[in-house]
Every structure is written in structure tokens, then in C-alpha cells.
């Protein structure tokens, strides 16, 4: 029930309503209210104007509510067909406009769309609340659920029924009025504290600056100095008094923003200044001032525990994990602790490597947390140096696309034909038809790869049209949006290897959205649990680093020469660099997240610093490494949607490494039997079965961590 999840997220951010000039348009001219007689039902982008959205949203919500009423007031006894299937069929217009609108709001936005977004978010959130809190609707679903054993339901139907019911229950359908009122109160407190946490963090990050003179810049490269000088100039411009301005005149400013701090920590030879800047970073929200986040974090954790208890769960983590692939906190702890020891061991080796450099340089100090970037860079140069610039000419976008198409073709026999007769929203967005081995149509893939000023940063996959087999075969229209550098002049776009991995990753999501083949659209494609949906994306990344495959597509764009073996070797070796550190800081933060969200409702309000310290001491974190996020700036879990969920990054990594290892064990990365299983049980199934079952059907067993340890060089094999 993605719609409900969507509604909850919007509810959290329903602020800031602004009015807009309403252009009334004739409904018969609104493309959203017409049949799309376009090839493959790709939205008719050239006909859609900004003024069409609002009327279509309003009409869509009206229609949707009328459909829900019709379901609830149906005089016939509740049945799977007249309730759940009708629910699936409802909201077509709303879904249609919503998909186009929110896609373009990220990939091709404009001031009007941004304004509409602010105006729409409270409306949409209120709309979905009306459905998820509809008691009549829940009663019908509950009636069917109670009778589920006597009904002749397919596995997919049973899963849809259980998921739908669960989403009502999680929205509070089984609670009495008093409990519901309590939940509402807790939710509003959580919402306030979450906002405050984010605002404090922003203020704290902006609150510290390291103002330097010309002679404090030892070791810094020219571009870094220029950037710091620019920061000072900007601050000077913003300053209001002359005294303020004088503070920045001819100075250089560094801040605890990662983009400013990391280069400084890496390059500056001034150990005292490195310590100052790093300390300001890790003390954010922990300065006992008016923007302190300690109490807020503790209160949030406690409120979440109370809410979980009201809902009938042991802890907040239990509440969250119920919907994940790993079902209980114990399973998550087990996974994290299995990885913890090898990661920490490796980190200790890395510390020793760096200490050796310090000693060799004739310094007399012990490596500290603020030395890590500088000395790991020295180790990297000595052991792993890879020249990114030498690699790029082999990685033109067209070559990489050819590579990813060939990879999926060899795995599943699917083919890609670029289409030019389809109108999309921007000339850089390319369109391919995806066909199956037998030539039948599978879906439309849109690839929108270059960065531009009206596109948001990052990389993502989404769809303009979903898949369903409920009323005839509906095939999807999916999109990948990335931010690769646009080509200069007539030269091709050259990617970094990181870009290549991103492309394969998002393409994996796209395949998940394209190969899907389920009856009920709400369970199609990528709609599974968060700690599983990354698996189909991440596993595809592995093919990009296979020497055999790299050689098939990475040819020099000018000379046509195939990528040399020594470059590939360096590339693969570089991926193991600093993994002890990266994994240790990440795992420490994941464990901290789990600790915060397994506290009990009846526990006293925690002292944040003491709690965190105990949590980190318990696992033996070394002083040279701070957790990726400390509690007072852990925005993922206290200001975002990752509470009891930060572990999922590594969980997905375990799955993809273990999954790909199956192909390596078979001795063929295109093993046809395995590829077929992967498609059948993972890429086609959406959320129609429990994620762990799907994985086991593909792999023949539960996931193991060994392959991940090897991929990351944590198995003791790295020198």
C-alpha cells in the first residue's frame, strides 16, 4: 500500500500553503481526463500544461473518494472481488496525474510546479488520510480477512489482503477512540520535534566557521584555497555591519559542511586546525546551547517507543521491522554484529598503516580521528593510486549504455530499441522499447542522464505508468534520472566509474520495474520492503565491475582501444581502499540507531551523551573513528524516515554480494539457469511474496555475509 505510505510522508510535511492564480481550463481539453492515444501510453507530455495539474488532481481525488464510497456502500456482502480488486481499480485519474506531476517536479521542474507542490501536499495528504482512516472500508477488509481460510485465494491475493489489512491496522484501525487520540497527540509531538531537530542541525552546521589567514593554508591545493576565499567573500557580502565585514576581509573560511571539511582534513598540514574543524563537526547539536539536540533525540526515541507500545509492539524497531525483510531487532543485531568484528579488525590494520606513515615522517603523535583523511590519502596514493582521468575516455555514456543493455540481454534475452517517434518531456530524455526474448513488448524505458538546472541532484528510478494484469495486460513506462555531466560541444559525455556504477544501479531498479509481472498493480515492481528493493538494483552493479564485461563495452571514444588490463586491475583494487574505516563508522551508526529504537516505553528519558557512549563502548569502537553520525546530528533517523532502518544499506549489500556470488560459483556470470531464477523470483515478483522467500527461491538458501566481506576486502585478504 504505497499510497498510504505516501500519504503519511506528506502528512509530516503539510505546511506552507500558498495560493496561486487558478487558470480554469476546459475539462475536455485536460489531457489527464482524456484517453492517451499515444504509443505505449507514454504520457502526452507536449499536451500537458502546468495549468492542467490542479484541476486533474482535484477531479482525481473526487473520483477516487466516490469510488471508495461505492465500495463501502455496496449492498453485497464484502468479497475479495468487490472490495480489494475494486480498491485496486480505484484512483486511476489521481494516479495518472500524480505520477507525471511528481516525476517532473524532480526531473524537469519550474517555479509554477514548485508552487503547486506546496499547495498540493496538504491536499493529497488529507485525501489519503480519508481513505486510510475510513472505518467502513476497514470493516469490509477485516470481514474478508477473518474469512480468509474459507476463501479460495491465490498466494498473490492472500498477500494483497494481508498487506492491505496491515496498512489499516498500522494506521490505527484497531485502536479505540482514546488510543487514537493518544496516537494523534504523539504524532504531532514527534512531528514538531523532528522539525526542530532538522532546524537545529542546520543552525549548528552553519554556526561554526574556521576563519584562516594566508599563513594557515599549508598543504591546501589552489582550488581548495580559492573555494575558501570565495566562502569568505560570500560571508562578507552577507554581513551587515562593517565590523562583521572586517572579520572576513582577505580571509579563508572552512565550515563543518562535508564538502568544505573533507578537503581540508585531507590536505591541511596544520594538525591543530584539523582538530578544531573536526571537533566542531562531531559536536554539532551537542553544545549545550539553544540549538542543542540531545534532549530532542532522547524525547523522540521515547515518544516512538510509547507509540509502538500503544500499537501493540514491544519497541519502535519491532514496529518498523514488521514490514521489512529482516523481521525483528534480533535479526538486525545479528547481521550488524557479524560484520562488526571483521570491519573493526580491518580498521585497526588501517590505523597501523597510517601510524607507520606518521612515524616515517618523523612526527611524534598517535593517529587521531582528525588525522584519518590526511593519512589515509597518503596510504591510498602509495598503495591504490588510480587515475580517474585516464579511465574516463573509455567510459562514454553510449558505451556504458551499450554495456548495460548487453548485460541484461545476455542474462534474460531482452532487447532495447531506441524510439524517436515518442514525445518526452525534455530532448535529453531518451526512449527505448524493451522487448522480451520472443519479441513481445515488456515496457518503455526512459533514460534522462544529464544534469541540468531544472533537475534535482542525485539519481533515481520512477515510473510514469505501472504494471498490472488485473484488467488485461498493462505494461509499464519506467524512467531513470541521473546527473551525469552534460557533454561539452560535440564531444561525447564521459563518465567516471562511480557514474557507471550509478547507471547500472538505477538500471537495476528500472529492470525491477519493467520485468515485473503481477496481477495487482499495487504490488508491482519496486513496491517491496525497503531493505529488499535495493537488491535488484545493487546486484546489477556487480556486472559493471566484471573485467570480461568491462572489456566488452569500455572502448576509448577516440581510438577505439579496449580498456587495458592494468587499468581494470587498479580500478578493482581501489574499491577495497579504506573499507575498514567506512564500514566501521557506518556499522557504529547503524547499531546506535538500533539501540535508540529498541528502548522501552517505560524507560526513563535517556541522557543522550551517556546513552551513546555506552552504546559505542559496548561494541568496542576505537577512538580513531567516530560513528558516521552521532545522535545529535543523525538526521536520517531523527529528522528523516530511516529510524531503525539505517542498517538497510548494508543488508542490501549482503544480499547483492551473496546473490552475485551464486553466479561466480556457477563459473559463469551469465549462467542461464541462475539468471532465469533471478528474473522469475526477484525481478518479476514485485511484493507478491515475502522478500526472504523470494530470495531463498532464487539462491536456494538464506543470505550469508561471506561474499560481502570478500567484496569489501574485510576477509583478511587485503594487504
Amino acid at each position, binding site marked *: 500500500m504505497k499510497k498510504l505510505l505516501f500519504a503519511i510522508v506528506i502528512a509530516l510535511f503539510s505546511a506552507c500553503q500558498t495560493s496561486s492564480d487558478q487558470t480554469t481550463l476546459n475539462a475536455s481539453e485536460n489531457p489527464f481526463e482524456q484517453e492517451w492515444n499515444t504509443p505505449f501510453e507514454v504520457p502526452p507530455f507536449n499536451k500537458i500544461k502546468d495549468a492542467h495539474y490542479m484541476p486533474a488532481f482535484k477531479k482525481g481525488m473526487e473520483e477516487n473518494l466516490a469510488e471508495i464510497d461505492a465500495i463501502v456502500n455496496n449492498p453485497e456482502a464484502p468479497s475479495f472481488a468487490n472490495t480489494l480488486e475494486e480498491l485496486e481499480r480505484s484512483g486511476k485519474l489521481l494516479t495518472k496525474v500524480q505520477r507525471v506531476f511528481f516525476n517532473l517536479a524532480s526531473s524537469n521542474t519550474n517555479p509554477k510546479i514548485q508552487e503547486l507542490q506546496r499547495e498540493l501536499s496538504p491536499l493529497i495528504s488529507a485525501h489519503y488520510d480519508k481513505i486510510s482512516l475510513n472505518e467502513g472500508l476497514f470493516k469490509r477488509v477485516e470481514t474478508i480477512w477473518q474469512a480468509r481460510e474459507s476463501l479460495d485465494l491465490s498466494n498473490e491475493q492472500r498477500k494483497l489482503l494481508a498487506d492491505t489489512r496491515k496498512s489499516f491496522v498500522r494506521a490505527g484501525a484497531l485502536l479505540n477512540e482514546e488510543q487514537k487520540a493518544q496516537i494523534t497527540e504523539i504524532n504531532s509531538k514527534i512531528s514538531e520535534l523532528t522539525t526542530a531537530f532538522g532546524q537545529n542541525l542546520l543552525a549548528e552546521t552553519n554556526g561554526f566557521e574556521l576563519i584562516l589567514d594566508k599563513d594557515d593554508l599549508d598543504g591546501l591545493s589552489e582550488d581548495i584555497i580559492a573555494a575558501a576565499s570565495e566562502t569568505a567573500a560570500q560571508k562578507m557580502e552577507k554581513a551587515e555591519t562593517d565590523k562583521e565585514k572586517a572579520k572576513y576581509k582577505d580571509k579563508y573560511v572552512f565550515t563543518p559542511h562535508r564538502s568544505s571539511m573533507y578537503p581540508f582534513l585531507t590536505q591541511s598540514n596544520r594538525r591543530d586546525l584539523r582538530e578544531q574543524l573536526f571537533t566542531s563537526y562531531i559536536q554539532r547539536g551537542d553544545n549545550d546551547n539553544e540549538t542543542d539536540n540531545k534532549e530532542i533525540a532522547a524525547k523522540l526515541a521515547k515518544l516512538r517507543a510509547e507509540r509502538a507500545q500503544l500499537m501493540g509492539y514491544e519497541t519502535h524497531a519491532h514496529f518498523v521491522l514488521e514490514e521489512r525483510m529482516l523481521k525483528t531487532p534480533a535479526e538486525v543485531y545479528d547481521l550488524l554484529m557479524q560484520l562488526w568484528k571483521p570491519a573493526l579488525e580491518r580498521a585497526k590494520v588501517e590505523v597501523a598503516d597510517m601510524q607507520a606513515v606518521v612515524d616515517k615522517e618523523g612526527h611524534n603523535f598517535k593517529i587521531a580521528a582528525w588525522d584519518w583523511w590526511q593519512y589515509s590519502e597518503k596510504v591510498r596514493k602509495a598503495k591504490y593510486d588510480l587515475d580517474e582521468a585516464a579511465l574516463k575516455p573509455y567510459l562514454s555514456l553510449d558505451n556504458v549504455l551499450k554495456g548495460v543493455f548487453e548485460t541484461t540481454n545476455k542474462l534474460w534475452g531482452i532487447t532495447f530499441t*531506441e524510439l524517436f517517434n515518442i514525445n518526452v518531456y525534455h530532448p535529453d530524455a531518451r526512449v527505448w522499447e524493451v522487448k522480451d526474448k520472443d519479441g513481445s513488448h515488456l515496457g518503455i524505458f526512459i533514460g534522462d542522464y544529464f544534469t541540468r538546472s531544472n533537475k534535482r541532484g*542525485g539519481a533515481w528510478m520512477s515510473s510514469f505508468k505501472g504494471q498490472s494484469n488485473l484488467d488485461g495486460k498493462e505494461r509499464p513506462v519506467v524512467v531513470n534520472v541521473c546527473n551525469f555531466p552534460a*557533454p561539452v560541444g560535440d564531444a561525447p559525455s564521459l563518465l567516471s566509474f562511480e557514474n557507471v556504477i550509478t547507471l547500472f544501479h538505477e538500471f537495476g531498479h528500472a529492470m525491477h520495474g519493467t520485468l515485473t509481472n503481477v496481477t495487482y498493480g499495487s504490488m508491482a515492481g519496486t513496491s517491496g520492503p525497503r531493505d529488499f528493493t535495493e537488491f535488484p538494483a545493487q546486484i546489477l552493479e556487480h556486472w559493471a565491475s566484471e573485467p570480461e564485461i568491462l572489456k566488452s563495452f569500455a572502448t576509448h571514444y577516440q581510438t577505439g582501444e579496449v580498456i587495458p588490463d592494468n587499468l581494470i586491475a587498479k580500478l578493482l583494487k581501489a574499491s577495497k581502499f579504506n573499507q575498514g574505516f567506512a564500514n566501521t563508522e557506518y556499522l557504529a551508526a547503524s547499531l546506535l540507531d538500533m539501540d535508540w529504537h529498541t528502548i522501552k516505553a517505560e524507560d526513563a528519558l535517556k541522557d543522550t551523551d551517556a546513552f551513546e557512549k555506552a552504546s559505542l563502548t559496548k561494541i568496542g569502537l576505537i577512538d580513531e573513528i567516530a560513528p558516521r553520525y552521532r545522535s545529535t546530528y543523525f538526521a536520517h533517523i531523527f529528522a528523516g524516515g530511516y529510524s531503525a532502518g539505517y542498517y538497510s544499506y548494508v543488508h542490501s549489500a549482503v544480499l547483492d554480494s551473496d546473490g552475485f556470488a551464486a553466479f561466480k560459483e556457477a563459473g559463469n556470470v551469465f549462467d542461464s539457469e541462475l539468471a532465469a531464477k533471478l528474473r522469475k523470483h526477484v525481478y518479476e515478483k514485485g511484493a507478491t511474496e515475502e522478500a526472504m522467500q523470494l530470495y531463498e527461491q532464487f539462491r536456494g538458501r538464506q543470505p550469508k555475509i561471506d561474499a560481502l566481506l570478500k567484496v569489501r576486502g574485510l576477509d583478511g585478504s587485503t594487504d
Partner: protein
Amino acid sequence: MRHLKTLTFCIVLCSSFVAYSHTQDELVILEIEQGELIFQDEQMAAEYQAALKRQRMRHLAAMPWLEKFLLFVQAGIAHIIPKGLDHILFVLGLFFSSLILGSLLWQVSAFTLAHTITLALAAQGVVQIPGDIVEPLIALSIVWVAVENCMFEQTNKWRPFIVFGFGLLHGLGFASVLSDYGLPEGNFVALLLAFNIGVEVGQLLVLIAAAVLVWFIRHKSWYRQRIQIPASLIIALVGIFWFIERTF
């Protein structure tokens, strides 16, 4: 230029809808809080044009040979009618110089030969002269032929050579449109030829249209006074206007 503060919730909203937005995990949250999307109209227009060109080039690369050839003929025509108003005026300037077919043919041939040469050279990248030099000169060339039409009743024998020189300029003008349009590397010569054929067809159409219009009055005694000179004057005025517009 407008700066628009993007509000945190918008982005969290989209990143939750567009379910899988990540790569660097901190981007998802830290950048959101500080993010600011800047809309610069000029930059966006430039990005859009570049994207359009890339799209055209991809499409061309995927086209069958004949279709591509015809497309370039079409593009050549389109760059005279309706897009090449200054070239139309120049050709009309030639038309109003003489009603003797032989003289006209010589001039048009000289013009065609000359612009073919510079178009080919510029498309190859051998010659590169910036548009803000070429464009005002093209305007002046229009003024020149039109003024000459008013001064001499019949063309002098140097005229084809002067027209040849001007043709070189116009070729550079075509080249700049062609490079905006994009020329796939693989079929360079054939497509250049196709484009040129299109330009010739466009020129001929202009000449034929003009000839049809004046066919029945060309022998009237007042043809020069009432048609040839006023038309040339108008052409010259437009040319002067363009020259000023393109220079300042």
C-alpha cells in the same frame, strides 16, 4: 534570474515518491536541508538548445541513408525559406539587377559556387570566423548589390566577381546554421551536398517566384522607375537596418 528557495518538505516529498533516490546517503538528507534550486532562464535555454541538437544527432545516426539525405535537403531549403530572410533579400537583390537571363545566371552561379566553398571549409573546421563579423558583412553585401542596382541600369562585368566574394560570406553564414543544426561525422560529404542542394532549391524557388511576379511587366517602360529601383531601395534599407542591428 530568479533564485528560489526550495523548501525541505518539497524534496522529502519527491524523494519519498520517487522512491529510490540515493547514491551518497548523506545527499538525500543534508543536501535537502540546504538545497537551493536556481533557475536561470538564459542558461536553461542554452541547455535546452544543446539537448535538442543532441537529440537530432542521435535521431540522424539511427536513420536510413536516404531519409537522412532528404532531411538535409529539406533543412537546406528551410534555411532559405522561411528562415534565411537575409539570403532571400540578397538573391532578390541579384534578381533586380538585370532581366537578362545570361547575366543573372552568371551572378547566381558565382554566388552558389562561392558559398559552397566556404560552407564546406567552415563545416570542416578549416575556416572559423565569428558570427559577429560575418553577420554584419552579410547585411552590407545586401546593401551593396541593392545600391548598385539603383546606380547602373545594366550590370557591369565585375559584378559576378563581387557577387562571388559576397557568396563566400554567405557560405560562412550557412555554415553557422548548419553547425547549430549538427552534421553527423559519418556521412559528412553526402549530407553537406544534400544541404547545399536544399539551399539551391530554396534560392531557385525565390527567383522563380520573383520572375513570375514581374513576368508581364518586365518590358514596361516604367519597370525600372517603379519596380526595380524602389524594390532595390527597400532591400538596401532593410540591409542597412540589419547592419546597424548586428553591429551595435
